[in-house]
């Protein structure tokens, strides 16, 4: 009797796709896709080569940013961005609280639930930039359109997460409040609000951070803020001013991120 059938070499077992034929099929599929996809990308290498000098100038501008010569524009854009961020977060959260309560299955009747979920779905489906294009067309250029865009986007974000949170509350506490004969408003105030408040504050701070980042983007389509300043600087080939704007954005995002994570830890 021989033990020749016993394997003498160890092979690494496959982790994700167990069947060998499927693995080969997926690999061939990936290669075919890459050939097709890279084939459609036609690159004008002469243009890229010309651009390298500009890229170098941009990197130099980033290393030696020029804050002073366009400071009026930069500070104006910054004030617009920051005020837009704060007002839109406050208004967005204020509107999304009732919508979030309405979109929680355990608090709202079915027809309110479906209406509120529909509002959330519409607000989440569209990109901020696309919404900004429409609001700029309706309300004219400037930070007011940006404020409306960010408020609209905030509703979808906060209301969805708040509604999911309310649906997961501890039912025992709600039941005990209900047993005292509390009305619906008292139920929301004494059973739901204490349970979801820490998370709502955390989400609002996180959204404040996101809204600032987005306010830097929607300026490109005319909705005011620091993005408009950046767009102008790049259009004028003033890479040192553009570098300054980018550095300010990075610095504020970093401060906001660390600040909000610190504040959330402090509040919990």
């Amino acid at each position, binding site marked *: 009797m021989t033990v020749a059938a016993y394997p003498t070499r160890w092979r690494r077992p496959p982790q994700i796709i167990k069947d060998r034929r499927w693995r080969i099929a997926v690999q061939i599929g990936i290669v075919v896709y890459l050939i097709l996809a890279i084939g459609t990308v036609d*690159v004008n290498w002469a*243009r890229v080569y010309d651009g390298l000098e500009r890229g170098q100038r941009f990197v130099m501008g980033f290393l030696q940013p020029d804050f002073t010569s366009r400071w009026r524009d930069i500070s104006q854009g910054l004030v617009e961005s920051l005020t837009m961020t704060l007002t839109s977060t406050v208004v967005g959260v204020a509107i999304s609280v009732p919508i979030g309560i309405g979109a929680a299955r355990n608090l709202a009747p079915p027809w309110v639930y479906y209406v509120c979920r529909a509002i959330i779905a519409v607000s989440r489906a569209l*990109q901020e930039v696309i919404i900004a294009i429409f609001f700029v067309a309706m309300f004219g250029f*400037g930070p007011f359109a940006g404020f409306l865009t960010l408020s609209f986007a905030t509703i979808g974000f906060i209301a969805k997460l708040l509604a999911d949170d309310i649906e997961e509350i501890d039912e025992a506490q709600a039941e005990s409040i209900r047993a005292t004969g509390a009305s619906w408003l008292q139920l929301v105030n004494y059973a739901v609000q204490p349970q979801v408040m820490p998370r709502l504050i955390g989400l609002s701070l996180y959204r404040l951070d996101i809204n600032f980042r987005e306010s830097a983007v929607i300026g*490109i*389509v005319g909705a005011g803020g620091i993005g408009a300043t*950046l*767009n102008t600087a790049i259009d004028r080939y003033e890479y040192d001013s553009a570098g300054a704007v980018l550095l300010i954005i990075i610095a504020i995002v970093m401060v906001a991120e660390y600040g909000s994570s610190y504040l959330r830890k402090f509040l919990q």
Partner: protein
Amino acid sequence: MNGITHFSQVWSHRTPRARLALWVGWAALVALFVWCWQLMTANTIWFFVQDAPRQAADIGSRMMPPRWSYLPELWAPLWDTINIATLGTLGGVIMAVPVAFLAARNTTPSARILRPFALFVIVTSRSINSLIWALLLVAIIGPGLLAGIVAIALRSIGFVGKLLYEAIEETDARQIEAVAATGASGAQVLSYGIVPQIMPAFWGITVFRWDINIRESTILGLVGAGGIGLKLQASLNTLAWSQVTVILLLILATVVLSEWVSARMRHAII
């Protein structure tokens, strides 16, 4: 005599001091809001704002019968958009993997110099939106698909790098030690101890980012970086609102489909 009458206090949720602090906090927030509101709307032309409902109705009426005959022209830009997202994700992941290994506390070769550098790369890439990257790259390497792909790749580094280095830091140290105890070299520890542990997280993060990238690449064309956004920009510039409707519906369908695909794939992996 009834002894209970002096217990006339009413139960309240908070102490007086906490209530006062809460009121001051709310008042400060309201004051800040009003101040910011005045600063923001200093230059707003209220006539345009009053005029908005009429404008909205006007745009709505122009958008309404969508011009479906425009649809065949959109397949090629849609294919470009998907390629931007996929190739951009690929490039971003390839660049993010070494950054993640440098940033993770348990695999970084030098915690003093390389780790802060890797963390800085991650923060920089995360704080600049892909549309801004595209704006810069269109100015540098010219309009086209390449600028879009590079913009998506640069934005993806931060996202994939951050989530991946957190996954590396959460690996089970005992398995790594067991592989190291067999006399494995550094590269072998990486390949047999760490990589199998982070593989599911890696694929999950990649597919998730691909889904986000599909969303973002639909608008990159607004600044000239190719894809369906170029058609959107062209239609907006010529005020062809009935074409805009078709494009938006197509974008919406693509986003929903990619979200579904990514949810299915993540479900299968994890």
